[in-house]
């Protein structure tokens, strides 16, 4: 019987956060702490012919200036698949610079200001090389290779065939060919990256205070990259100011800061500023996807031929190979639809840009491409997009079904979300309003998008991806009965806005029938939390961490009740638990408090529980976006946005809705505002918030959310929801924009639609795809 679960209880962390008592990595203070700034390349591609740090070292207040030679560190590569070229690289680059922002040296000083003064005095000589600024230039074999070792900027080329696409195309009524372009975007959390490497030469212990989604992975990676014993290395995360996939790896800067601290023998703090964050922290979404779709006369999608090219920037991530992103796109592209034949070619190229990282729903392109394609097919055939969706969406009676890319779809309710959304949208009324508005010179549009995301997905999803470390590995939780009867729960999750401190406490408090303030959730400290290479990410927390906490709470409750039964000389089944006390039903005076139980249980106060779900579920949604476009200025307004979603049971509805709205906002932003632009010379153009635009409260619409209550898929029916908003929104919004601009015969294939592009599309003029 749940009291807290299912209700939007106050977040336990809010009183602290709202009164300014958060503890972010920039707030960490360690005695003797020094401050680091990086010397970063101002040019996109060059050989380094010399580095002179003497002037920098002479600045009063500077303690050290280190280049690659001065640090004891390994090659940054840890692992990756054999088909992906993964050239060696260093935390601080020594031979070449490969993007504007590439770190060359680390300056450590008494203050950040002094470190920046000295960084300007580090004299680097460059022999400039031709820049590789985009996919076309990367494919051009006459351009210099970024890595001599690789000899090419094409790092991966693979082909996959699922079903029999050739037969599908042979039988097609029509073939629709489109080339979709997603522009580079940045995760841009409000807090940049950072870390404080607290190294003690006396003990050899390194405590790295970090803002990070995967503390255990960071620890293990740092130990390997630094050659530092893991038992002398701890990672501690406090409050984290957002991440969205950016603070999820051992970064080159993390390694350099730790190595510098060890070399110098003093604690070193590095707090990334916004300019570094926009330049070097990581970017995403830059993919070009060519699609040929074989369609029947009635709008069935018979088969797809796809070529996806991903621009991974210069350097790879140490713990996440760039090849994984197109793999996920390929595997998920059919989505909740009846697409039975797929040919998918992948190319990954290196360019002189920042590293491509995972960004909230990194496979979002599959929904963008598929949902845009469905609308274009509908327009070409003179059908309503809703009709084409209804035709192609899998029905309940077709499930369970093994999709063509090897993923079993069961308990999928994507179609149900679509049907409910359609009811709420009242399409006929909208079409009437749209037609009337056009007579007035007003352009209204409606777009929809339906998708499903593995949250965490069925067992064959990991196999289809071909990854080694399964994203569905067991998750452990530990529950401790404290001597005073309060409860501590230890989780591998690393919350950075998702409220796990609260949702997991809700589960534990319900499980033990205690008030929520009697439960504390501990996260982020690798000495205390259960080991897991994957912390938070990939929409896993809801299911796996919840399952672990529910399980460990039940196990602790059993242990408490067993002790109580013994102490009270009562039968287990005659006992009831309430308010941190176990008593005999009907005889409340015959009872024992949790504290008294703890005294009896000591030292066995900890219980561990491993949750490995054999069959993970899907989250799905249909997004509906209404727009009104001023075709003279190109400004797009969103008067209404609706999400009809099914992510199973909700632990805390307000938290779930916050996640959805945040994701939708990022998806909208990716269409209307955000472009991590580089010129044709690979110079970054959006290096401050004046140029990299995030929408404000004045631009973001109200987002209505309807939860579809489908039958539970098991006792732990909390499914991941963190990424869905960002996955569905770009498709829904671009569909709406194309719908609004239908009188102009516009076909939208770019994700980035700022005002000038809308106007260019309306006028049928050529459109600037890259700034000169």
């Amino acid at each position, binding site marked *: 019987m749940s009291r807290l679960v299912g209700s939007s209880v106050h977040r336990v962390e809010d009183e602290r956060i709202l009164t300014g008592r958060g503890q972010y990595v920039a707030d960490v203070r360690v005695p003797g702490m020094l401050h680091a700034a990086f010397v970063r390349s101002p040019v996109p591609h060059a050989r380094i012919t010399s580095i002179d740090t003497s002037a920098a070292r002479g600045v009063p207040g500077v303690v050290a200036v280190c280049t690659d030679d001065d640090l004891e560190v390994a090659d940054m590569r840890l692992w990756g698949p054999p088909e992906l070229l993964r050239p060696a690289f260093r935390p601080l680059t020594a031979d070449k610079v490969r993007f504007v922002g590439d770190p060359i040296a680390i300056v450590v000083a008494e203050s*950040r200001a002094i470190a920046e003064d000295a960084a300007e005095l580090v004299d680097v000589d460059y022999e400039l090389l031709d820049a590789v600024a985009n996919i076309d230039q990367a494919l051009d074999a006459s351009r210099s290779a970024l890595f001599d070792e690789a000899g090419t900027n094409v790092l991966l080329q693979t082909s996959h065939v699922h079903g029999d696409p050739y037969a599908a195309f042979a039988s097609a009524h029509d073939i629709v060919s489109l080339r979709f372009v997603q522009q580079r975007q940045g995760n841009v959390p409000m807090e940049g990256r950072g870390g404080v490497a607290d190294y003690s030469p006396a003990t050899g212990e390194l405590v790295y205070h970090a803002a990070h989604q995967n503390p255990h992975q960071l620890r293990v990676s740092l130990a390997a990259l630094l050659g530092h014993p893991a038992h002398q290395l701890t990672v501690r995360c406090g409050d984290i100011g957002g991440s969205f996939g950016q603070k999820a790896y051992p970064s080159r800067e993390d390694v350099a800061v730790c190595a510098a601290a060890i070399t110098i023998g003093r604690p070193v703090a590095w707090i990334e*500023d916004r*300019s570094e964050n926009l330049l070097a922290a990581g970017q995403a979404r830059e993919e070009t996807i060519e699609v040929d779709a074989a369609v029947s006369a009635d709008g069935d999608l018979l088969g797809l031929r796809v070529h996806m090219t991903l621009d991974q920037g210069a350097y790879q991530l140490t713990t996440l190979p760039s090849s994984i992103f197109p793999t996920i796109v390929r595997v998920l592209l059919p989505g909740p639809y009846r697409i039975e034949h797929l040919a998918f070619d992948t190319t990954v190229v290196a360019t002189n840009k920042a590293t491509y990282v995972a960004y909230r729903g990194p496979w979002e392109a599959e929904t963008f491409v598929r949902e845009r394609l469905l609308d274009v097919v509908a327009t070409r055939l003179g059908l309503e997009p809703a009709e084409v969706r209804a035709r192609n969406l899998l029905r309940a009676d077709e499930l369970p079904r093994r999709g063509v890319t090897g993923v079993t779809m069961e308990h999928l309710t994507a179609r149900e979300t679509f049907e409910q959304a359609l009811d709420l949208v009242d399409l006929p009324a909208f079409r009437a309003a749209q037609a009337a508005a056009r007579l007035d010179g007003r352009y209204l549009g409606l777009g929809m998008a339906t998708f499903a995301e593995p949250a965490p997905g069925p067992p064959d999803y990991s196999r289809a991806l071909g990854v080694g470390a399964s994203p569905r590995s067991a998750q452990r939780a530990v529950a401790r009965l404290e001597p005073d009867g309060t409860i501590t729960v230890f989780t591998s999750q690393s919350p950075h806005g998702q409220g796990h401190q609260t949702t997991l406490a809700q589960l534990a408090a319900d499980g033990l029938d205690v008030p929520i303030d009697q439960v504390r959730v501990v996260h982020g400290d690798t000495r205390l939390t259960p080991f897991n290479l994957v912390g938070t990410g990939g929409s896993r927390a809801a299911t796996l961490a919840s399952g672990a906490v529910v399980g460990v709470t039940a196990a602790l409750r059993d242990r408490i009740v067993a002790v109580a039964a013994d102490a009270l000389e009562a039968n287990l089944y005659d006992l009831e638990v309430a308010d941190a006390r176990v008593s005999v039903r009907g005889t409340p005076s015959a009872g024992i408090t949790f504290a008294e139980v703890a005294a009896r249980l000591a030292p066995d106060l900890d219980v561990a529980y491993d949750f490995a779900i054999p069959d993970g579920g899907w989250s799905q949604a249909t997004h509906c976006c209404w727009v009104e476009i001023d075709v003279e200025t190109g400004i797009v307004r969103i008067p209404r946005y609706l999400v009809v979603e099914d992510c199973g049971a909700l632990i805390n509805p307000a938290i779930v809705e916050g996640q959805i709205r945040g994701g939708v906002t990022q998806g909208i932003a990716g269409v209307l505002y955000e472009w991590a632009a580089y010129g044709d010379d690979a110079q970054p153009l*959006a290096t401050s918030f004046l140029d990299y635009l995030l*929408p404000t409260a004045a631009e973001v619409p109200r987002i209505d959310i309807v939860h579809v209550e489908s039958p539970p898929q098991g006792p732990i029916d909390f499914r991941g929801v963190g990424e869905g908003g960002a996955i569905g929104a770009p498709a829904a919004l671009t569909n709406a924009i194309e719908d609004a601009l239908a009188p102009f015969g516009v076909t939208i294939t770019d994700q980035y639609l*700022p005002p*000038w592009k809308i106007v260019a599309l309306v*006028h049928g003029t050529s459109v600037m795809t890259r700034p*000169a």
Partner: protein
Amino acid sequence: MKSAPFAYHAPASVDEALALLAAHGDEASVLAGGQSLLPLLAMRLARPAHLVDIHRLDELHRLEVDGEHVVVGAAVTQRRVERDARVAEVCPLLADAVPWIGHAAIRNRGTVGGSLCHADPAAELPVVCVASGATMTIAGTSGRRTVAAAEFFEMPFTTAVQPGELLVDVRIPVRRPGERWAFLEVARRHGDFPLVSVAVAGDAIALGGVAGRPVLVADVDAARDAVTAADDIHATHEYRRHLAGVLVERTLARAAAA
């Protein structure tokens, strides 16, 4: 992002300020509200060795109507102008344009003088001053001079104020009875620098964001032809040309309806 080091001065009189500015020449920057200067310092795009803070200069805090003009001292904050009932009454163009500038926190500190001297080609106040035929009073060690707004703005981020000189005030003509006026801008987000802005005051139509400084144009066609801004991350040249025409039309319609 921390500034390069500088010395800070807070002179108590205009003469003292001018002496400091003369002594340090182009190694000195005037600090008014700091809302445009401090970001440049933080990014080390500007590295003056000396900052001369003008907030103690009483004369530069003058805000009054002297019959024909609203006299706005260089250190008067945008927020003070925004809240002044008299300004709203006699110079509605100015009153209407100021709330478009950034956000409240910026306008609380940002000054009229600072915005004019920063001379961002997209800023609102320069466009209003050019449209209304304002005049700027500039002080130097050899005395004071006045410059018409149309001549005050020379190039992006460059005005007629020379090293060693100090803008003292701007005099904006009050609206003549029956004179049409309107201000409109198009920006990507609320509070952003406009992509294009238009100020109408009587027969004058001024455009901002389309060239290196505000330009006066006769009509919609002239507005398009006046656009010299190149493609940048926020807009193409073609778009600004198109938008200039659209916005001049809309602003004139608004001025007629007022």
